[in-house]
């Protein structure tokens, strides 16, 4: 049994119903978790399982699947030298708790997901657009956003 599976089992034992499934693909482990428990699970991963670093946080738009969005947390542990992915499925309009309090890196990464996907992170300290300007209409990485963009009103001063 791989070391990563061990950690996944500990996660399942601790959170039970909040763990919706786990699987391995190409030697990489992913765990599907309930969006409501993201913050608790994240904190457990950091404190108990040793995932000190949030290497990446992003989202995927699976239109036309329902639930439509998936927020993906790529964790890394220096102690175990292991990577683990947490995935939380979200319906359109559903929000998820911020993990900013667990890893500082989440601040900008969550802002980017908010900017490009329109996913809201509850209790985020500074949820503004980061790559596009305030007042931009639409969220470009959504599948229903046209490749050539939508006309924007730009005020020149």
């Amino acid at each position, binding site marked *: 049994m791989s070391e990563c599976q061990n950690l996944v089992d500990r996660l399942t034992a601790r959170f039970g119903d909040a763990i919706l499934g786990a699987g391995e693909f190409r030697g990489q482990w992913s765990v599907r978790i309930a969006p409501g428990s993201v913050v608790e699970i994240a904190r457990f991963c950091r404190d108990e399982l040793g995932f*000190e670093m949030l290497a990446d946080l992003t989202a995927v738009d699976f239109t036309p699947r329902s639930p439509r969005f998936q927020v993906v947390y790529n964790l890394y542990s220096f102690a175990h030298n292991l990577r683990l992915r947490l995935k939380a499925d979200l319906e359109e309009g559903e929000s998820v708790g911020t993990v900013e309090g667990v890893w*500082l890196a989440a601040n900008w990464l969550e802002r980017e997901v908010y900017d*490009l996907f329109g996913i809201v992170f509850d209790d985020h300290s500074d949820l503004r657009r980061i790559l596009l300007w305030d007042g931009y209409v639409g969220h470009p990485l959504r599948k229903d956003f046209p490749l050539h963009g939508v006309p924007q009103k730009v005020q020149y001063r």
Partner: protein
Amino acid sequence: MAETRNMIVNMGPQHPATHGVLRVVLELDGEIVVKATPHLGHLHRGLEKLAEVKTYHQALTLTDRMDYTGALINNLGYTLAVEKLLGIEDQIPARATVLRVMLAELQRLAGHLLWLATHALDLGAMTVLFYAFRERETIHDLLEDVTGARLTPSFIRVGGLPQDAPPSFFEKTRAFLKDFPRRIDQYEGLLTKNKIWRQRTQGVGILSQEDCVSFALTGPVLRAIGVKWDVRKAQPYCGYETYDFEIPTGTVGDVYERYLVRLAEMRQSLRIIEQALARLPEGPVMLDDPRFTPPPRQAVGEHIEALIRQFKLMSAGFKVPEGDVYLSVEATKGELGYYLVSDGSEKPLRFRVRPPCFVNLQSLEKMIVGRLVADVVAVIGSLDIVLGEIDR
């Protein structure tokens, strides 16, 4: 007594020390930074969106245009991720793998030289720029010999490399390896014991180790604080585990140590290139698998089957099994990760780049609050950011 107010100053977007177009809004109390808010996105081209309408082959060209000082390493990371998705990572020809390592390390040298030149220039040491650019030019000539391009090679392809390196490349690389250590000594001679350089950089931009990890800092910035972590060692790819090299680290993690770490890394890269040259095996540089790789160029003009294979691959692309993969490589700036999600078609459902510069830049405010304006320039320089990658 007159009332005093904090002053708001726009640093950038067009400021030579912001390496691209980064705007930092500084709130200043005299010369002390009270608050710093970076505004990104001036170079946002929507590369992640564009990749979703391109085949896996075509999307490669987008990776060149992120961190344009480390294009080959960007190519490498992306290609390895696609190969992992396809499950063909073990079938890449040995010669291609060794050449990939050589190209990546040469690119790392070029990237570090650009950093050294501009960082020193930011802090007022102009001479270093001319020295470092001289060697950078040599490296770009070497890379041009192999790839045909200086900045946007798109050369590391799924399955290997599109063509072998010419014999002249190896000769020139040997000559370069012989010459370069002396050049690094020259840069060190200009800066390492330079009193002005030390005063500008020592004790500047320090974060605690805990914060560094929490901010997910990677690359030389993390190593300067004493965390001995490098993707090439921790989770090796391209056979890096078989090369003999060290991970230079610091202890304090200030701007000065980041400089020392990068210079030491250049020496390590030289060692890796030397070993790669010594072990370079003969053989093909491209996997011959009709499903993913084009036929040899020569065959396309001679056999109709090869022509069909070429046409099919280039127009329709290849199908990739459903699934997702996160793969990271050690770029010049830190951990460059690719998270690819495939729905089983020829185009990625999601093409996500984990940009080391973006993640590293986030720690800027914490490093400069309470310090002088002049330190802002030093810290931005030491983070080695490239805005093409931050904004994508």
